[in-house]
């Protein structure tokens, strides 16, 4: 390692975890059980990193006796495109994994020693945790286990030797130093790509996905990544069934026209809670000239008010940060008085591109590399043809389950593997290309490039209702964004990170659009207007993306239903 020192700070560890959110720290804690050294690196501050501190504090909870039913429902929702090995593992192992997290002293809602679970969706309950204290507590658990953590370091690429990942390279956002980490096992836990679109969860910019892809890891299910939710301007979020009371510009409650089963009471609001279907109805209404969409609190009957405001009945310590009273938040943050006027609501693009392909131990297709949490939620295939983002409370649950599985596997691997040195010449070249934009004078602001990527991802015409010609237009926008990126000026390491984030976002957008172009059918949350039917004959297949020797290939692979419990819906 001596010569590597000349390139920057060289650090050796048995296990490197990239990303210090819930899945990353869970993986680190589990990996530390194998007795080797564990290092967690985040571009933010661990304790606040990842999505949990700004999450809703909901965690899906499937009890062991409900697991088989839940598994069958997930396969139905995923239109049979699930990796059923992972779907089974998620449904059956979730309860034990969450109990293990409770055993670490994480701030879940307990009565005595038992987890409290409230009805959340007709098909599953959710337990609750304190979003603000959760990661701080996890960091304490990690520190006690002598896990090292480094904040404000932005990792850009993976190091490789003989087809095996041997660590990662990046730079300090504050100190500007180059960091070269040599590891026996590397775990990517740096989330999906959400393109800075929503205000919360804007931390997810896809760099983990991009580095895995460049290192040769297979990606899959990229076409199912883009989801929408609904909410008020300013991302004042609620998980209550407010959508029941949405009205169009004419003051009509329109949901019953699309889903009469809900308003007729044949399906409960919880059972219906599917962001995808709601987004679809809202879009149709707006496209038919009946937008914008509002909610009028003055028109709500007392029992409707109670339903609309029900999340405020959670104990204060489990309320998400800044939630408080909904009506006060609308007054204070939006300057709108809901007693005097109706309040506009709209669709919010969620994104969620996490396609790193993993097996049930969270191994990627590259030796020495694991992926956990959002970075691999689509790539695990546990939700099939839809993003986990279409159901509330799944993200944290998957982070815990995959973090524990991936951490155990990576820790064991590191304990029986020999160190594999970093190749000086490779590290030098990667450092050079990583730092190349630094100091460059430019004519374009990187935020304008990100806006261009938004233009290709956020509109429903590209991500919710797709069609070949429009997907082509969106790809052209991404190409223009890439071209703009070459003219971006980079003054310091903060701007350098934004440059690399824009590059990762462009890659995520391109892979999603190309997969969506290729899948000539409608399935799950992928809707093609030019191919409106689900085509089980030709498309019970995964689209797998890989890069080999600089060439990107998109291929299909039949879902191995013959091996699975559920053969077809």
């Amino acid at each position, binding site marked *: 390692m001596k010569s590597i020192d000349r390139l920057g700070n060289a650090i050796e560890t048995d296990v490197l975890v990239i990303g210090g959110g819930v899945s990353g720290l869970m993986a680190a804690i589990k990996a530390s059980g194998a007795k080797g050294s564990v290092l967690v690196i985040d*571009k*933010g*501050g*661990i*304790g*606040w*990193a990842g999505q949990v*501190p*700004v999450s809703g504090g909901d965690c899906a909870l499937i009890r062991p006796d409900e697991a088989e039913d839940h598994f069958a429902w997930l396969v139905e929702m995923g239109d049979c495109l699930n990796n059923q090995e992972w779907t089974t593992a998620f449904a059956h192992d979730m309860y034990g994994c969450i109990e293990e997290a409770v055993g670490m002293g994480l701030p879940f809602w307990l009565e005595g020693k038992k987890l409290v679970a409230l009805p959340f969706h007709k098909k599953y309950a959710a337990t609750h945790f304190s979003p*603000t204290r959760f990661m701080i507590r996890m960091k304490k658990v990690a520190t006690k286990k002598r896990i090292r953590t480094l*904040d*404000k370091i932005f990792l850009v690429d993976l190091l490789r030797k003989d087809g095996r990942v041997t660590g990662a390279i990046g730079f300090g*956002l*504050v100190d500007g130093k180059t960091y070269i980490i040599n590891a026996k096992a590397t775990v990517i836990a740096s989330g999906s790509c959400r393109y*800075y*679109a929503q*205000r*919360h969860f*804007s*931390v997810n910019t896809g760099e983990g996905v991009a580095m895995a892809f460049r290192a040769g890891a297979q990606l899959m299910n990229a076409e199912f990544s883009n989801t*929408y939710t609904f909410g008020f*301007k*300013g*991302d004042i979020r609620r998980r209550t069934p407010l959508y029941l009371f949405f009205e169009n510009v004419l003051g009509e409650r329109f949901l019953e026209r699309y889903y009469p089963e809900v308003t007729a009471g044949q399906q409960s609001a919880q059972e219906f809670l599917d962001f995808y279907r709601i987004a679809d109805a809202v*879009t149709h209404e*707006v*496209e038919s000239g009946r*937008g914008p969409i509002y909610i009028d609190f003055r028109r709500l009957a007392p029992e409707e008010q109670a339903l609309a405001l029900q999340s405020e009945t959670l104990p204060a310590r489990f309320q998400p*940060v*800044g939630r408080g009273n909904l009506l006060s938040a609308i007054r204070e*943050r*939006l*300057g709108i008085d809901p007693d005097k006027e109706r309040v506009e609501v*709209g*669709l*919010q*693009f969620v994104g969620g591109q996490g396609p790193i392909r993993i097996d049930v131990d969270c191994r990627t297709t590259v030796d020495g590399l694991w992926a956990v949490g959002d970075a691999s939620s689509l790539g695990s295939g546990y939700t099939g043809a839809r993003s986990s983002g279409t159901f509330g409370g799944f993200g944290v649950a998957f982070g815990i389950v995959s973090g524990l599985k991936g951490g155990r596997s990576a820790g064991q691997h590191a304990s029986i593997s020999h160190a594999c040195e970093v190749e000086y010449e490779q590290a030098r070249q990667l450092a050079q290309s990583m730092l190349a934009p630094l100091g460059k004078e430019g004519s374009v602001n990187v*935020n304008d490039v990100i*806006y261009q990527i*938004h*233009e290709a991802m*956020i*509109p*429903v*015409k590209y991500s*919710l209702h797709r069609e070949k010609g429009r997907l082509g237009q969106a790809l052209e926008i991404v190409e223009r964004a890439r071209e703009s990126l070459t003219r971006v000026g980079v003054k310091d390491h*903060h701007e350098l*990170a*934004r440059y690399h984030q824009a590059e990762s976002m462009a890659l995520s957008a391109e892979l999603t659009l190309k997969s969506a172009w290729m899948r000539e059918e409608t399935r799950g949350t992928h809707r093609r207007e030019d191919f409106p039917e689900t085509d089980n004959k030709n498309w019970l297949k995964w689209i797998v993306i890989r890069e080999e020797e600089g060439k990107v290939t998109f291929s299909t692979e039949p879902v191995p239903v013959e091996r699975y419990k559920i053969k077809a819906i």
Partner: protein
Amino acid sequence: MAIDQLDQEACTGCGTCFSACPQDVFRMDARTGKAVITYPDDCVACWSCEFFCPVKCIKVSEPRPRKVPTAY
């Protein structure tokens, strides 16, 4: 302007905003030990710094400095 105020008098230099900001907007001033809004253009108005600041010395307003296209 999303993040428009950081009260230097009230700031204790605890670094919570520096750690919690998902967009790396803050730096800690080496001389005063207090937080500084260094990259205000990159703020997405997520309110994390305002919510998490233990002495409530930060104010965020609703508009994002840079617009985001609407869904439809």
